[in-house]
């Protein structure tokens, strides 16, 4: 009896020692994973962009893992854990809670919709979990003095700033003077945020605002909005739309023969690959603002795009490039942190200076965060939908330095 007890105690000790030794050995550590929680709109009105982000993340993580994972963590692999926000802030918050508490993720990314990202980042901040936001443009996401929130893409005041720079540059370049302007935008966080800044800048640049119209993104019919646009007859129309309403607006404008001189969209739905597929020739002449375009002149961009297209059947978008880059930003930070401890990962993220590597297919020069976690380098390009080889294509036109060689923008688009 006595010896039996002793014996079992001994076995226990031996077992524990063996366990410790195993844990310390590289063979065991190679099985270690870093869990990355992703809240994305995988169903509902923004599902197609959610899926783009998901696929881009998967491709990046596949590459990172195939290249040996996070070396400073003994080759730890990245693992993506998804949750569907349905574009609903409430769902986004509960899913973030679940990923952090139940799935025990080490980092968070997401959520595309500003309205979801805003409260979701708040949850992560409360738990002290680093949150890398690839896209979600609302300014205030990185203006609350949070320690754990980092945004790779530009914020919406920069998008608006560049829209008005573009309008001014193009008028200077072509000598065409445009006076009246109309705002048409989806009634969510994103659209109303843009509109606020449009009003400011339009006033500053001396445009006359003839229509300022929010509309619900779930509207079944946008003919009423287009009718209003027709009677306002503006030179310039600025748009913020999700995919479904972007398609509906463009087609309805063609149907109702509304032809403003310049239609300038703000990415999102207009940048969705489904947009051109569903509008075709009715979209010719449209200007759109994006983080990225396939003809952007950056090393590796063409190859990465070709790889993505082969895998998923469509070109990379601004959303997917930022999601792709975000995974490399995370991998880079983990590598430098050498730990999955949230505080250490957070510090490593804050010290990011990424200017080389696969992530640099982005249109700007690098990733470096300011004290609020905003990437100070993030920038934007403007494209025009043009007929190239008989098919509608998005051609980079602005900044002028980035313009596709041999292309002259059609400005104004409708004379």
């Amino acid at each position, binding site marked *: 009896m006595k010896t039996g007890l002793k014996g079992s105690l001994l076995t226990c000790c031996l077992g524990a020692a063996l366990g410790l030794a195993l844990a310390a050995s590289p063979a065991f550590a190679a099985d270690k994973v870093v869990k990355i929680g992703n809240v994305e709109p995988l169903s*509902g009105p923004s*599902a197609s962009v959610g*899926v783009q982000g998901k696929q881009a993340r998967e491709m990046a993580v596949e590459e990172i893992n195939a290249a040996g994972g996070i070396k400073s963590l003994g080759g730890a692999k990245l693992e993506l854990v998804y949750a569907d926000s349905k574009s609903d802030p409430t769902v986004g918050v509960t899913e973030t809670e679940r990923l952090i508490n139940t799935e025990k993720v080490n980092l968070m990314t997401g959520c595309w919709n500003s309205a979801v990202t805003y409260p979701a980042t708040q949850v992560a901040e409360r738990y002290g979990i680093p949150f890398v936001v690839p896209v979600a443009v609302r300014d205030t996401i990185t203006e609350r003095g949070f320690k754990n929130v980092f945004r790779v893409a530009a914020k919406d005041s920069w998008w608006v700033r560049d829209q008005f720079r573009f309008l001014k540059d193009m008028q200077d370049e072509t000598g065409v003077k445009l006076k009246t302007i109309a705002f048409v935008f989806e009634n969510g966080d994103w659209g109303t945020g843009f509109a606020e800044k449009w009003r400011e800048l339009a006033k500053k640049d001396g445009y006359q605002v003839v229509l300022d*119209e929010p*509309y619900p993104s779930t*509207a*079944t019919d946008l*003919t009423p909005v287009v*009718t*209003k646009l027709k009677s306002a007859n503006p030179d310039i129309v600025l748009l913020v739309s999700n995919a479904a309403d972007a398609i509906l607006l463009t087609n309805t404008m063609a149907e109702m023969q509304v032809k403003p001189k310049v239609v300038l969209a703000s990415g999102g739905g207009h940048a969705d690959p489904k947009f051109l597929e569903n509008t075709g020739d009715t979209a010719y002449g449209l200007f759109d603002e994006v983080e990225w375009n396939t003809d952007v002149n950056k090393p590796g961009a063409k190859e990465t795009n070709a790889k993505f297209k082969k895998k998923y059947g469509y070109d990379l978008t601004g959303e997917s490039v930022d999601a792709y880059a975000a995974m490399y930003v995370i991998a880079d930070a983990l590598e430098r942190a050498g730990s999955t401890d949230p505080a250490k990962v957070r510090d490593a993220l804050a010290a990011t200076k990424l200017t080389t590597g696969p992530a640099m297919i982005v249109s700007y020069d690098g990733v470096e965060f300011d004290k609020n976690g905003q990437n100070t380098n993030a920038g934007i390009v403007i494209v025009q939908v043009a007929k190239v080889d008989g098919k509608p294509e998005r051609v980079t036109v602005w900044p002028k330095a980035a313009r596709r060689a041999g292309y002259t923008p059609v400005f104004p688009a409708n004379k």
Partner: protein
Amino acid sequence: MTAVIQATLNGIMMGAMYGLTALGLTLIFGVMKVVNFAHGSLLMVGMFSAYWLIKLTGIHPYLALLIVPPILYFFGYSLQDLVIKPVFKAERQVREPLTVIIVTTGVWYVLDNLALMLFGAEYRTVRTAISNKSFALGQFIISIPKFSGFVVAVATAVGLALFMRKTKIGMALRATSLDREAANLMGIDQYKVYNIAFGLGTAIAGIAGCVLIPFYYVYPSVGVVFDIRAFIIVVLGGLGSIPGALLGGLVIGLIESVFSQFMASTWTEAIIYAIFLVILFVKPSGFFGNKQDW
């Protein structure tokens, strides 16, 4: 003024189509006394059927009107026969068959998710001969797909009303709607009538799918958008009333289109819901509703 007249024309055309989407819902309610929560999904099935038919065969969208509704009729007929009827029979003794309503909700989820699995979440439109085409009526512009939709919607409502009045099946449907026990005693097979009513409601969703697809896009949860409209329209027009559905649709279409000219279009949504609430308070049976239903 021009804008208001233009908006009125648009409102009438779109309103008739809202009415058309509500027609199947009101028919099924009228006969079965069941609020069919799967109606939007059936509309989605109709839109996808029209989409694939036009996309794969390249036929004119209005030829699809001859093919899609009959297919949808059998789909609805079998759905009721195989899925809903057993629940109905189990609840024979209950005046308000609640479980059936829950079953239709289940059908909604199953159909939407099935479509999501099969076709993905993306938006699809099919470019047809009449997509984005319009004609001028003086200084007003009439969209051809919407105008055709309007004509089809009115024709469907008139056709359905005539069918209910003049044919034997129509009379059986009406008899069952008035009193299912009495109709049963008169030798009408209640469950067969339900099958037919559900089939007809689904076929109308198929008609709506055919006229919507030339200018609207389809995706798995597209039904939800139209569903809420359809419910409001049906309550507005009177549950079970065919002219009520059409009139309710026109009212909603006109509010949406004309009011938008004077205020931000986000407000019209609120106004529609406000009117819905007022109707519920003042005249819960709607414009043409039968009081004894409630």
